[in-house]
Each structure stands twice: as C-alpha cells, then as structure tokens.
C-alpha cells in the first residue's frame, strides 16, 4: 500500500517550471528563502535575547560553581595537594611546592592571581584566616632551603592546623559547591561533612522564605485592592472609566524612584500622615507611628507600585465579559452573590491568574523599593545579592543566591502552570 503511494508520482513526468527547474524544487526553494527572510527579521530579537538574557544567566550559573582562584594563584600546589589523603599534615614535598608557589604568587600583581585573591577565597571558608596568608607571603621568600615544613611553622604556628590544609585542598579545585552551601546557610565542618551554619550567622534561607512570604502577601493585597477597581473600570461608561484609567496609568508612568520617595515623604515619622494625625489629635507628638524603614513601609510602597500590573490584566478580562450573563443568571432566580460566584468570578480567572503571576514574580526579585524604605527588617533576598555584588565583592556567592532565586521562580511557575495552566493566562 505504502509502496504504491510512494512510487506513484514517479510514474508521471515531473512538472517543470518555465526555466526548466522542476516545480517542486522551485517551490521548496522559494519557501526556504521566505523562511530565511522571516528568520532574518527575528535576528535582532534573537541576538538581543542571547546577549542580554541567555549569556548573563549562563555566566551567573557558571560563576556560582566555578571559582579558579586556588589554581590561578598556586598552579603547582593546587595539583600537588590533591594527592594528599587528608590525614595529619601534607608531606614535606607538598610544603616545598607551597612555599615556592607562595613566593612566586607574592611577586604576581596580575588581577585574580595574587595572594590577596587566595586569602579572600580561603577567608570565606575560615573567617579570620586572611591575614595569615598575606602575612606569611611577605616572608616566604626568606625560606631558601628545607626542611620547608619547619620553616613555615616557624613563620606562623597556625600552619600546623590540618583544617587549614583540608580547606586549601578543597579551594584548589576549580569547581565547588561551597557557594551553594553558603547560600543555604550550610558549611563544611572540620572533618569535611556538610553541616548547618551557626544559627547566629544564618541569614540567607530565612530571608529567602521571608521574600516568598512577603511577595505572596503583596500579591494578595494587590488582588484585594485591584479586583473592585477593575470591576468598576469595566462597568462604568467609557468616558468616566477612561478618566479613572488615567489615574491608574499616571503613577504607572511615573519613575519608580519618584513614587518610592513620595512614600517616604508621606510615611516618615515627621511626614504628612503622622503630622495630620498629630494635628487631629489621634496620636500625640511623642507617639508618632513608625511606618517606614520597616516591613510595613516596604509592603505599602510595593503594593502601590505593583498595583497596575494586577489592574490591567483584570480590567482587560472583565471588559470582555458580557453583562447579559449576570442578568441572565439573576432572571433565573440566582441571588446577587450566587450569580457573582457562579457566573462572573469564574470568567475572570484568566485575568486573576495573569495578574497574580506578574505581581508575584516582580515582587520576589524586587530591589530598589526595599533598599530605600526597607530599613532593617524589610530587606529582601535581592538586596543581599546586590550587597555581595557591590560591597563584599563575593560574586560567586551572589551568583549562587541569584541562581537559587531563579530556580525558586521557575518552581513557582511550574506549580502555577499545574494549577491554572499557562494557556489560561490572559495578560490583556
């Protein structure tokens, strides 16, 4: 059967175009050319996505695991130490290579290959060990001959600590999970096991959970405020609703920084709201309420800033729901509440889904507003990431935290997709 179908066309002479090329071939060529042209039109976008999106994220993933400081600074030692079994102290031979590498590295002024880089890297693992490296490196050039172990210990007794050498062994490997451990409040114990960090130093997981929880809260507040507003906008006559729409859009078009600063002026203890309350006698001058530079301030400012992202999808969905459906339900005897729950609300779900997803994902990575009004307890995970990129310069830890945040967002997106279905989203 198939054979017949396959061989059937060969029984006929192929159709030939005017220039002698088989028509089929010519058609294929033309479609291919058209496809290419279509593809060329998308090239700017593809390039843009590649350069501005795929490459930076790839770089971030790579940096969070790849830190070649150890092998950059001490090329010979980082290979030699891998043969050590981790018992007692390394052999005299390894000590010799260590001293030689350190003397050579001390002369190196190339960025990323200095003793200072290695000292900083080890200091992440053993806080307080930084100066041991810089101090020792100043003196190793005086060690001219063996025994090297004794000579190094004579410079500083701290080199007798096997934990230091085990850490150096770990740091000498280019690929490491250490930054993911740090980003989840864990660390390597002295014997190499993975353990939880001291509760006093645990910060990343609590802040991550707080970020998720706050984003959920902000999304909820946005929904509660946006739903009635969108309903009003979609049911009012066009002229009035357009006017009200401008009131929604005007802040949306205003700079983020301006809106955040405006909230500072409103909410601070000497600000507009506190002043009015004192004037009206609601509170006394001494008991002014702290509404900014804390969690409350962050939530208020972020709900305001993200509100349009909830209103617009909701509005666009509600606009398409014919009012006749509700009237039909009422005419058949359903109460107002019942018809709203059974008829109106289910039809707005695509808008709710889109709005909550937008607001939640924007909130979870928010940076500027919490940085300005967050004070001490309103900080989010993105502020810690910025801190590591800009202040402590621990880019690997910043990258690991960024990757975790990305994974969290993807997981939430996946759950969301299971619950609502991405095809059901309606962004407007």
């Amino acid at each position, binding site marked *: 059967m198939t054979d017949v179908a396959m061989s059937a066309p060969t029984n006929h002479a192929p159709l030939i175009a005017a220039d002698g090329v088989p028509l089929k071939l010519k058609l294929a060529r033309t479609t291919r050319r058209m496809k290419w042209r279509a593809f060329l039109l998308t090239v700017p976008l593809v390039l843009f996505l590649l350069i501005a999106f795929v490459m930076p994220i790839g770089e971030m993933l790579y940096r969070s695991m790849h830190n070649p400081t150890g092998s950059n600074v001490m090329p010979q030692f980082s290979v030699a130490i891998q043969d050590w079994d981790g018992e007692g102290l390394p052999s005299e031979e390894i000590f010799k290579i260590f001293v030689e590498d350190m003397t050579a590295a001390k002369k190196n*002024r190339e960025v990323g290959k*200095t003793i200072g*880089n290695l000292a900083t890297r080890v200091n992440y693992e053993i806080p*307080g060990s*930084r100066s041991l490296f*810089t101090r020792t490196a100043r003196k190793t050039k005086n060690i001219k001959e063996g025994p090297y172990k004794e000579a190094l210990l004579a410079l500083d007794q701290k080199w007798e600590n096997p934990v230091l050498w085990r850490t150096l062994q770990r740091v000498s490997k280019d690929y490491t999970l250490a930054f993911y451990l740090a980003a989840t409040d864990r660390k390597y114990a002295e014997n190499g096991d993975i353990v939880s960090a001291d509760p006093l*130093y645990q910060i990343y997981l609590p802040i991550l959970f707080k970020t998720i929880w706050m984003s959920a809260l902000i999304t909820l507040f946005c929904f509660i405020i946006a739903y009635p507003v969108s309903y009003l906008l979609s049911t009012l006559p066009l002229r009035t609703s357009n006017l009200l729409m401008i009131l929604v859009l005007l802040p949306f078009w205003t700079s983020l920084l301006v809106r955040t600063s405006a909230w500072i002026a409103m909410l601070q203890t000497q600000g507009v709201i506190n002043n009015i309350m004192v004037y009206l006698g609601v509170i006394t001058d001494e008991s002014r309420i702290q509404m900014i530079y804390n969690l409350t301030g962050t939530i208020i400012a972020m709900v305001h800033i993200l509100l349009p992202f909830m209103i617009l999808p909701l509005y666009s969905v509600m606009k398409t729901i014919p009012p006749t459906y509700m009237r039909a339900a009422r005419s058949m005897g359903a109460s107002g509440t019942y018809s709203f729950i059974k008829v109106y609300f289910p039809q707005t779900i695509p808008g709710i889904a889109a709005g909550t997803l937008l607001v939640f994902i924007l909130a979870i990575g928010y940076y500027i507003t919490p940085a300005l009004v967050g004070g*001490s307890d309103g900080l989010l995970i993105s502020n810690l990431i910025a801190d590591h990129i800009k202040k402590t*310069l*621990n880019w690997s830890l910043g990258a690991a935290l960024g990757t975790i945040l990305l994974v969290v967002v993807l997981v939430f997106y996946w759950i969301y997709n299971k619950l609502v279905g991405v095809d059901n989203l309606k962004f407007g």
Partner: protein
Amino acid sequence: MKLTKLLASTAVGAAIALGSVAAHAAGDLTVVSWGGAYTKSQVEAYHKPYIAKTGANIKSEDYNGGIAEIKAQVEAGNVTWDIVDVELSDAIRACDEGLLETIDHSSLPAGDDGTPATDDFLAGTLYDCAVANIVWSTIFAYDKTKIENGPKTMADFFDLGKFPGKRGLRKGAKVNLEFALIADGVAAADVYKVMETPEGIDRAFAKLDTIKKDVVWWEAGAQPPQMLADGEVAMTTAYNGRVFNAVAGEGKPFEIVWDGQVWDLDLWVIPKGAKNKDTALDFLKFSTETKQLAAQASYISYGPARKSSAPLVGKFHNKDIDMGPQMPTSPANLANAVQNNFEFWADNADQLNERFNAWLAK
C-alpha cells in the same frame, strides 16, 4: 541622493565629535571622592591650585566607598577613574588583590621644613599602593537645643533611660561593635583584643540589643546631620567633618562627643591601568604636599596626614573658628580613642557583616 548626503555628513559629524571626546578624555583627570562637604574641601585645597599650576582639566566624581567599581573597571580593562579616595581597609584589600598601581614613597615630595616624605607622614599612613591624605573619625553627636545637660560618654549614647529618643547608627558591623564595647566598659586600648574572642563579639551584640528597637540606620555620610536636623533621631553616630561643617557652615546647634571615637585614614589610590596614570601620580604628589594638606583642614575638620602640616592649620576658611581643637588628632579628643584596626576588619568583615545582617533581620 539627499539621504546619502545626510548620512555622510552625520558620519563625519559623529567622527569629529568622537575624536574631540577622545582628545578631551585624555587630558581630563578623573578624581573620585565621597561627595558633599568633603569633596568640596578637596576641590578648594587640591583641585583649584593644581589647575592653576598645570592647566590640567579635572573631572570630579562622587561615590559611596567600597572597591566594587575599581574592581569592575580593572577587570573589564576599561579604567575611567584615575585617582580615588578610599578607606584604609579597602586600600589594603584592593592592593592585595592587584587592583592598584604601586607608589614609590621616595618619589613623594619632602615636607616644607625639608623632612623627607617617609618621615614627614604620620606613622602608618604610607602603604605600597596608597598615600594617606587625612585622618577622619566616627563620633556621635546630638542637638544641644533639644537635650539639656547632654551626653558626655559613649555609655550615655547607649543609655535610653537617661537620654530617651531614637539613635542613628551606620548600617554595618564596623565601628558599631567598637562603640558597643566601649559603652560596655571596655578600655579603648583593649577593644580589638576583646573583639578577637567570640565572647567579645557576643558581648558587643548584646549591648547593641539594648538599643536595637530605637535605632535608625544610615548609609551615606550626608544622612546623619540631616537626621539630626529633622529631629528623626536624638543622637547619631556620624563622620566628625560632616557634623563640624553643619555647625560651622550652616549654623546648626550640634555638639560632638569625642569619647570613644574610632579614627581611620582616607588615602589616595590609583587603579591599575588608569588612563592618565602619570597625571594622577603627579596630582597625588601635589595634593599631599604640606601646604595643600594644611589648606584642606581649613575647609573641613579632618586632620592632615603630614606632621609638617599641623603647625600650618589655622582657622575655618570664612569664620573665626580655630580648626586645631576640631581635629580627631587633637590631644583632648584622643583621650579615649580607638584607631580602626584594618587587619581585624580585613579578616572578619565578611563574617561579622553576615552576623550583623542576621541580627538585623531578627
């Protein structure tokens, strides 16, 4: 035809503009500092005389400290900052990591009295990659119109019973831990010895706990005088020069408490591969001469790093205020003072800031 012409002329125009920008950039010296009253004092004392002497163009930029920008520029191979004013612990760390040019101390000019530079600079102010220009200090200050019989000691700053009201503190572990221990009765000389032990750190945090709920945290040096003026806080830690300039320049009724001050250095550094490295080095030498350092002290109350500058320090530039007693290094102010231990902070800053952040978030 018309379009081609337009394109051609635009291209030529752009080329000329680019060319002139490039030529301009090569001559401009980009000097980066902390902004506000401090940068102003440098412009008056360093930049203006240097421009008058050499005819060079100086572009002044502000930043908020740290070595992130220097690191980013050096790693990208596009260094646009020629000379930067940094804190000591940052200078040491950046130098250790190979981000800075080294500076030959013997090439620095001798003092006005003929003392060689290496003897003229105060002990501990010259480093492989950095030359100090000023001594500054973190102190605490209050508004004397609002508190009668004001605080006298660091312990008073932590005493909410005796002096109720909000406190301003810099957001970060550095200096706050020192202050807490001094307030808790540790002698200034022993502060870092106590901080070397885990119990000492616990003790410092326990002391900070006693005022935590009343603290407003600041980050930029210009904030604390503003917070005092607005009445947001009853007292606040601050950089001494900023408070002094609010008093002398704007007539604010602030009072500085020198007890327990933590003093530190600001230094010039040249990022590795700076475009105008030679001009930057020349500017560095010029600005740290005896006369320029002394002149800066008449614009802001930071102490000059050269011994030979001290006798030349006179009055505030437009008021009859003797600058000598306003300096962190004045003997009366040094009675109970701590010098910031850069090695301790280079070793422990990451860990302690993590603990500080965890403590803040609780």
